[in-house]
Structures are given as C-alpha cells and as structure tokens.
C-alpha cells in the first residue's frame, strides 16, 4: 500500500495547457486590458489544462482541470503476505485558484484556492502468490482468494502554494513553476476479500486510521504558457 501511495504521489509530470489573462494598464491608467493565457502543465497531479486571467496588478485568477492515471502491476508484500498487486488510480480534479504577487520585481507569487477532487478512488487487487501452511493444511493461492482494497479522497480540497517565474509571457510563451499542496478530504476505505480472505473487513477501520494522515497532496508542476491576445 505504501508503494501504491508513493506511486500516487510521485506521479508522472504532465503537460499543461493554460490560458492566462492579465489585467494590464494601457498607459494612462484609465483603460485596462486584461492579460490572459492558456497553459499545458505536467506535474505530480498529472496532466493539466488551465486558464489564467489577470485581475489587477497584484492578483490573477486561475481555473484548471487535471488528470492523473496510475496503474501498477507487480509484487507487493502486505504484512508478510506476498502478493501480485494490480493497482489502478485515476486522480481527477478541477481547481479555482488565486495568485497574489507581493513583489513587483521578484517573479514569485502566493497561490491559494480550492480544488474539487472528482476522482480519487484508487483500488488495489492483491492476489497471494505463495501457499500458506495453517495448522496441517497447506492453502494454495487459488484457495486463498484475493483482496480488493480501495480508498476514496473525493471532495473539496484547499490549496496553498507558491508560483515562480513571470505570471504572463512577455511575448507568446513562457514557463511557470508551481509548488504547493492540496489538503485532501479525510479518506474512506473499503477492504473486500474472496474465498478464504473474505473476512478482512475489520481491517477497514485500521486502514482508515493509518490513512488519516495521508491528506497532503503535494503538487510540483511545470507549465508552458501561451499568451492570448497582445
């Protein structure tokens, strides 16, 4: 399970398309033009598509969606039980974020907002790979059955982070870096088994406790921005 969560958290970087808008002065201060861009990102939360608009000189707004597909198939040892694990996890979220630019000269911004995790239900199917001798009985993997373990973080997740590099390209393209974390909802778990492993529901409560601290979902993302308009 730990491997699984590590996989989840160390997910592939993603391409990000973003649309960014910024509010820009026309020179005399009376006529404002909003800067905007679109970006394609790659990061720990997967592939993302995001749009950004400048609200004023210090604030931007971002609206995006990301998706992170994870599959894993391979050996996994759970509490001494050697298994073959098939893990699938599709993390999907939409996010509405605000950027605050505290410095006029430094290209760094504070980012905050919320995400809605609409898909965060990884499942792991574990099939024992070795026989077990219980008493004088040797139980084969086929006799034992398999276990299907699931967790669900679906819900609202606040976000806090920082962004580096200029918020809008001076010309057509630039690169942004985001570093932050989502605070996920408290997860709920399921633990089902088949055949002789069908009495493991009692592990759900323990797994709930063990996962209760797994609510911080860090995001490190690199985005390629394309400026829309002049």
């Amino acid at each position, binding site marked *: 399970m*730990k491997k699984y969560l590590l996989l989840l958290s160390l997910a592939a970087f993603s391409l990000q398309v973003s649309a960014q808008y910024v509010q820009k002065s026309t020179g005399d201060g009376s006529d404002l033009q909003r800067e905007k861009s679109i970006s394609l990102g790659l990061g720990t939360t997967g592939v993302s598509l995001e749009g950004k608009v400048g609200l004023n000189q210090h604030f931007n707004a971002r609206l995006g969606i990301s998706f992170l597909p994870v599959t894993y198939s391979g050996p996994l040892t*759970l509490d001494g039980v050697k298994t073959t694990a098939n893990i699938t996890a599709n993390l999907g979220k939409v996010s509405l974020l605000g950027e605050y630019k505290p410095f006029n000269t430094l290209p760094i911004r504070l980012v905050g907002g919320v995400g809605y995790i609409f898909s965060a239900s990884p499942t792991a199917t574990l099939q024992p790979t070795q026989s077990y001798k219980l008493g004088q009985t040797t139980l084969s993997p086929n006799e034992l059955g398999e276990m299907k373990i699931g967790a669900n973080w679906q819900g609202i997740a606040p976000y806090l982070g*920082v962004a580096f590099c200029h918020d809008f390209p001076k010309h057509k393209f630039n690169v942004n870096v985001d570093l932050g*974390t989502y605070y996920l909802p408290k997860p709920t778990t399921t633990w089902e088994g088949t055949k*002789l492993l069908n*009495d493991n529901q009692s592990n759900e409560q323990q797994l709930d406790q063990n996962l209760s601290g797994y609510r911080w979902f860090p995001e490190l993302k690199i985005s390629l921005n394309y400026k829309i308009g002049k």
Partner: protein
Amino acid sequence: MKKTFKIVAITSVLCALAFSATLFSCKKVTDGIRVKVNTDIFTSPIGVHFVNYNTTSGTRPTDFSIKISGKDAALVYTSDGGSNYNVFGGFISLAVDKSAAPSPTHPVNFTITGSISGFAPIVYQVSITSDSAVSIIVPVIEYANPPANTVVLSTQVGLTGNASPAKALTAVATPTLANPATINIANGTTFKDASGNVISGNTLGVVATQYGTDSFNSIPGGLSPTDVLDINGSPIPGGVRFESAGSLAMQMNVDGVPVKSFGTPLQVNMPIDASLLNLATGNTVAAGDVIPVWSMDETTGQFKNEGNATVALTGGKLVATFPVSHLSVWNLAWPSNPCPTPLHLTINTSDPNYSGGNYRIAIIALPINGNGAPHVVGQPIVTSIYNGMTIDITNTPTNVQGEIVIYGPTGPSTSGVIAGSAISFCSTNSTTITVPVPSPSVAIHVITQFVGYCTDKQVTANLTGTFSYTSKTDALDFGNVNVRNGYTRFSILEGSAYTINAIYNNKPYTADITFTKTNFKFPGNSSITNGIASYDANANVLALSGQLNFSCK
C-alpha cells in the same frame, strides 16, 4: 515593513509545504493490519471423546494415537487438515472433505481404531450423513475396571514346540456375569502371524473381553456397522443393525508377536442370556435357536458373516458354540435391515435462545409381542442442541415400535431421559421433541473469537474446528462447541468451571475457565494466549477471545 510581511508570508507557505511532506510519510499504511484467513475448508465437524466405559473408574483415556480406515478414510482429516490423528486429553477434532457432501444417501463411512494401554482395543464405526456437527463418545473398556456384565480374561499358556496343549480358558465369574465364555484350545494348536506363518515361542498371552448386555454398546465395531460382508463375502448394502447375544474381543500373542490365526480353530462356548429377545422368532431365545456369527477385522472395522451358532441347553444354561479361525472380535447377533428412509427429528428447546449442552439421542425398541424388555438399540447420537435443530437419524430398526429419547447433558450414562417421542419405526418419517433446557436466568450465552496466529508469517487464521470443554470436577461433564472461522455461540451454566481444549498443529491448546458474568482474563497457565472474557449484562452474553500461536512454515 510591508516587504517584511511579504517575506514572512512566503516563508510560512514554504514551511507549510515542508510540514505537509513530513506528515505525508510519517505513518506506515500497514501498521496494525492483520490479514485474516478463514479456515472453513472442511465440513461436518466431528468431536470425538474417548471415555472409560466404567464411569466409576478414575482412569481416563488421555493421550494416544488413532487410525482412520474404511471406505471413506481418505475424506477424513483432523480439523486443521492433518492426517496424524493424535488424541489429547481423550479428545480429537475431525472433519470431512467438503467435496464429499455427505448425505443420508451418500454417507461418509469410516472406522476409528486405536489401542490404549490397559484398555480394550478401539474399533468404532462412524457414518456421517450431513454437513452438521457431530459429537461422538467412544466408551472404552478398561481391563482393570470393566463395567457390569463384562469380564476380562487375561492369562498365559505355556507352549511346547510352538504348540499349545489342550486348554479351556474361562474368565473369573463376577456378580453381574456369572457365566463367562470359555475359549477352548485344542491340543497341538499352533498360532500364526499376519503372513500365515507359525509363530515360534514359548508363551501364549491371551487377553479376551466378553461384552454383556450392559456393555453391548461398546462392542468394537458397534451395533450399526455399514461395512458388512455376507457369508459369501459380498457387501451387504447399507450395512445391518445388530441385536447382540454376546461378543468376545480376543487378543493373543506368542512371545509378543501378535497372533492373527490358528493351525486348528478355537471353539468358543458363549453363554446366552435367556431373557434376550430372538429377533428372528419374536420370542425369547431358546435351545435350538440359531444365532448368526460375525467376525470383525479390527484394522478396518469390517464385519463378515461366519455362519451360524445353534443355542444348546447345557447344564441347565443356554450356550452357543462356534469355531474361531482368526482374531479378533466375534459377535453373536441377529441382523436386521435398517429403515431405508432416515427419521427426520426436529428439536425445539424450552428457551429458544439456548444453544449448547451435551445431549444423547437414543433409539429405544419396545418388546415385540410382549416379549423381552425395552432396550437401547445402536449407539446414541451425542450432540449439542439449539431451537429448531434438525437431525436425520439413519439406520433405525425396521418395523419396530419404540421411542426416540433424549438424555440430559451431564455425561454419557448417568442422566435420565428428559424428553422423548414414541415412534413406529419405518412408518413414521418425522417427529419433533421439545427439550427442557436450563433457564436463561442461570445460563450464560457465550460467543467466541478464537484465532490462530502465525508466529512467522504475520497471518491470522480464523479457526474452524471442534473445541471441547471438560469439567474440572466431574469426568462425565463434558461437551463440544463447533467453532467456525473463530466464531461460535453456545450456552453454559453460570459458575461452571471447565477446561477448554482445542487441538491445532498436533498440539493441544487449553484454558481453564469459570463461566461467570464478569470480565476476566484467562489464567496465566493457559496455552490459549491473550485470552479475555467480556460480559455484556444487557444481552447476557460472555464474549471469549483468544489466540493460538503456531508456526506456519
């Protein structure tokens, strides 16, 4: 100042990020997780108790090995899946392979054989006809303390040239068996081993147990054998029911080498109780009556018809004489065909929540044509009971008026009948008996969660099998509980002190428990570890949990 605030804000965000990363990795996901494996891979849990037939003797069968033989022996395991059948504390837990799907039409038949020092050989036939739990009590004759109406002959005969002189061996009469059988050895008789070779030696050792009317139920092989050959050696489908007129179990050796057959057949004179009912005539037995003679192979429990013995009046007493060409168990008995249809018995309990006890269900046949006396036929079924429980009783006698009776829960032979139902066997296919049970005010409902813990693999097994409980003070007070995946529910009298015994991995696990309406820990000398009892006063339920530690390598 404003710039300072901004720097502090950004620093705080970075610190929060670092803190979140720390939290993310601080807890191991698998902490406290225990993979549980159910073990209900067998069916028909069978708890077998071996007891001294003489309940007044202080000697009990305790630790010994048994063998399982017969047609379906390969389908029988210890409850943890083994085929080393070791009895601990006079108890063993067996089970049947699920693929056998035992039923009245497809019973699982096997024979338990064993030898305990100081006791008569054990040969007990078992027929399993459902997936329900079965409790079996095997009474064993102690040579030094045989029950009433039973005698044991133990003697030696000197041999010359590996042959015996003419000898008439008779046990010492007792107040309850005034006419013991006589074993006649002809002059020059030699003794052969299992290969048919004459055994060389100087001394013939003889131990013979003669079973009387009070101990017919402990005749090796039982009175309802299913593996029976007719006089031509052909199997008798469904077996037979025996009405025994006398039985002799003989063991001989020459200088310690077991004897299997003889150069010249022995002649046995078996006194016959004149009050016995001859099933063939419907009258009490009389001179001139013919009684079939059956021998049993004690290694398999198989009976074979060896011919007939004719009852003669000798010296004013009825005696049947028959030749014995081989050892070991010989039974004079009238056979009858069992009913082709099982009797469907439903048991209700006076307290519908009751579950437990150690009740015996027996068939009593009434006299035919007013002759003879009511008598128990076959071996009683021993079982715990619950409301609505059903049992299919097979091998009931044919066309006999009788009763199904239920004896009380305290031991195999001392409690009286507490409920019953008149039956016309073969005509009546079902009946219901309501059993008075201890009132809820004095009984405690007990539930359990017993697990096996692999000390080397961190796997927990939800145990399945028969656990026994035996009174610390009364040898006749014992019973079984059938645990499935760690769980069972039964009722027991408040204040009862028992030793719980489970056998796993060829090892006994025990705990001495006094069932009280309190919370307590199992005693420190328990081999069932981490044992605790939690009492719920509202539900009157005592929850027991404990752990059996063993290697899973």
